């Protein structure tokens, strides 16, 4: 009996230690972002006066106003949303049917093609950047959103791999029953496969959205005009060559604005993410 009580005490101490460790880790991780938010709402001329703050003094929205006066930040927000939504839709549209065919279809090159597609998971994005850039140039698409969007879609290796696993895990009887009811291969994709993996689609959509939202180097290269930029690319404009007039406040305001939409996406997709990456 006493042993049980001692074990219980030990467990409580352990839990306390875990809480302590996680609290420290969380505070350290969040600190730069808290600092950023505090700066975003602090009047610009006060920011440099005191480097350390966790809360804005004389809280103001002036930095957001100043940022939107200097640059079309709402247009950037719209461009970011558009690009991220398009890339997400493109990735799902390519990977879901392919994953289904790799899971359930029959073709003698099926497995070879599967390997061909998923190995691209390993490709660093800058590896293809020079030839892709040349192609975009030849097609006259520089400084357009499609130039940002289209080459960003084919990184689908992970999505194909993941959806195939999910579809393979579905009981074959479901498909066989549908087949007996006269549903063809494509019908089964729409009626059986898609609805049964629908719960994990938001998880992958969220990751696709996040990836596209944050495209930086490729965006710097392809988006030249001020009004065509996305938030991730436009942020760079807040530092000037005669930089002492650095607008720290407006910069941090735009930074904060750039996080909000992806935060919402992840909050919405939270349950789906937990289900998607549970061990199958």
């Amino acid at each position, binding site marked *: 009996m006493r042993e049980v009580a001692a074990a219980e005490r030990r467990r409580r101490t352990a839990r306390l230690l875990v809480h302590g460790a996680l609290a420290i880790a969380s505070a350290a991780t969040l600190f730069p972002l808290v600092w950023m938010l505090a700066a975003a709402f602090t009047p610009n001329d006060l920011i440099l006066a005191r480097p350390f703050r966790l809360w804005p003094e004389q809280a103001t929205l002036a930095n957001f106003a100043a940022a939107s006066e*200097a640059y079309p930040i709402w247009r950037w927000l719209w461009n970011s949303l558009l690009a991220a939504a398009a890339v997400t839709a493109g990735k799902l549209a390519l990977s879901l049917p392919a994953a289904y065919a790799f899971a359930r279809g029959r073709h003698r090159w099926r497995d070879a093609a599967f390997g061909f597609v998923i190995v691209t998971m390993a490709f660093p994005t800058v590896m293809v950047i020079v030839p892709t850039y040349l192609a975009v140039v030849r097609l006259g698409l520089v400084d357009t959103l499609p130039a940002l969007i289209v080459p960003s879609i084919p990184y689908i290796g992970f999505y194909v791999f993941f959806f195939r696993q999910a579809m393979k895990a579905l009981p074959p009887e479901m498909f066989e029953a549908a087949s007996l009811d006269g549903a063809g291969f494509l019908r089964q994709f729409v009626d059986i496969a898609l609805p049964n993996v629908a719960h994990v689609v938001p998880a992958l959509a969220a990751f696709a959205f996040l990836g596209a939202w944050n495209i930086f180097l490729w965006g710097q290269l392809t988006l030249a005009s001020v009004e065509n930029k996305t938030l991730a690319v436009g942020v760079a404009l807040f530092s*000037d060559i*005669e930089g002492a*007039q650095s607008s720290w406040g407006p910069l941090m305001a735009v930074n904060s604005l750039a996080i909000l939409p992806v935060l919402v996406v992840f909050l919405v997709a939270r349950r789906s993410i937990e289900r998607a990456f549970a061990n199958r």
Partner: protein
Amino acid sequence: MKTLPLTRRSLLAGLAAGVAAPAILRAEAVRASDARIVISSNFGPETAFQAVVDAFNAKELGVEAVNQFDGNYEEATAKTLAAISAGRPPALMTTGWKFGYYAKRTLGARDLREIDADAAEALIANFVPSVHPLVTVDDALVGVPWAMSTPITFINMEHWRAAGLEETIPETIDTDWLYERARALDAALGGGAHPTFRSALSLSNNEWTSQSYVQNAGGAVIDETGTVGLDRPESIAGMELFCAPAHEGLWIPVGSREQDAAFVSGALSIVTTSSTRVIAYPQSAPFEVATTRFPGVPGRERRMNSGGNFLGVYAQDAEQAQAAMRFLEFCASREGQELWSGVGYLNSSIHEIPPVTPLIAAAQAQLADGLTAETIWPGTRGFEAQNAWRNWVSRMLERVDPIPEAMARAQDEITALVSA
């Protein structure tokens, strides 16, 4: 003399009074036929450059100019190269003198005389003859030499007084004088004795102020004959003097953004950097700022270098090129120059422009002493050559290798790049 408070808003308000009425009447007719030219620039929407663009557009000459801020010289040059290889060059670009050859030989900057010979002659006549060579590359007139700066010394007077240093700062200083005062500042204010003081000195870790040291010591980065002169004893002595405060712990070498932020927040006592900061520093700093010449090398004749940028035409299209010329004409005019002076450049035009701030006197004095050009990196790979020299400067500041050895290796690497 008072500092001219030149913001985009005050300018537009002023203009509105004068031009609004006729402008509204003519607006419709002009818009439709406007040629739209993009200027890739190093200046954001809150700067005097934007004021120049806005004032030009308000004139409604049938050309609409758009300021496209593309970052610093290096970033903007890379972006313009990308745009050129995409077949969509900006009509105009501002870029450093230092990329003059690169602009002509790699980016294909247009010869203004070839676009419109008469207009080009009229244009260049607005600028003092001594700056004409700066925009003459391979016998072509590659731009308007409208922005000249030179590195000078900026002092935080609050620190200065707190350390008990002399109230009157000499007009000409040398490194002995400067380093001695940096040591005094460090001794008096360091170790927590002053709430915001963190470091006494920052000489700018880049290719430009290091060139000043090399030249002031009698050496050359690249001499008049185009020969790289880094392995000369004078050049080595200059770099030894440049690196000494860093090796002594008086200078923490950082990038220019960090340097500016540290100075205006009262952490740095002395900065040597571009004279254009005469506008930005007093605007952001809550303390008195003083300026004086860049430090010379004791016992040597001063041989300071200039810097700044020129506006070149990159449009291949005839209509765009003509439209660009209209913009350049406005820039060269008295009105354009007066607005432009708000960025803090030295006046290189023949127009009488009142100084924007008394702080610029140090730079003007340096100009009167005579300035050489900053290093204009030759060859099609000049951009890489500059990068190489910057890396070597950093290495020497970090004491990675002994300075004579580093200079010998820099000599080889840069010689190979500039002859490409």
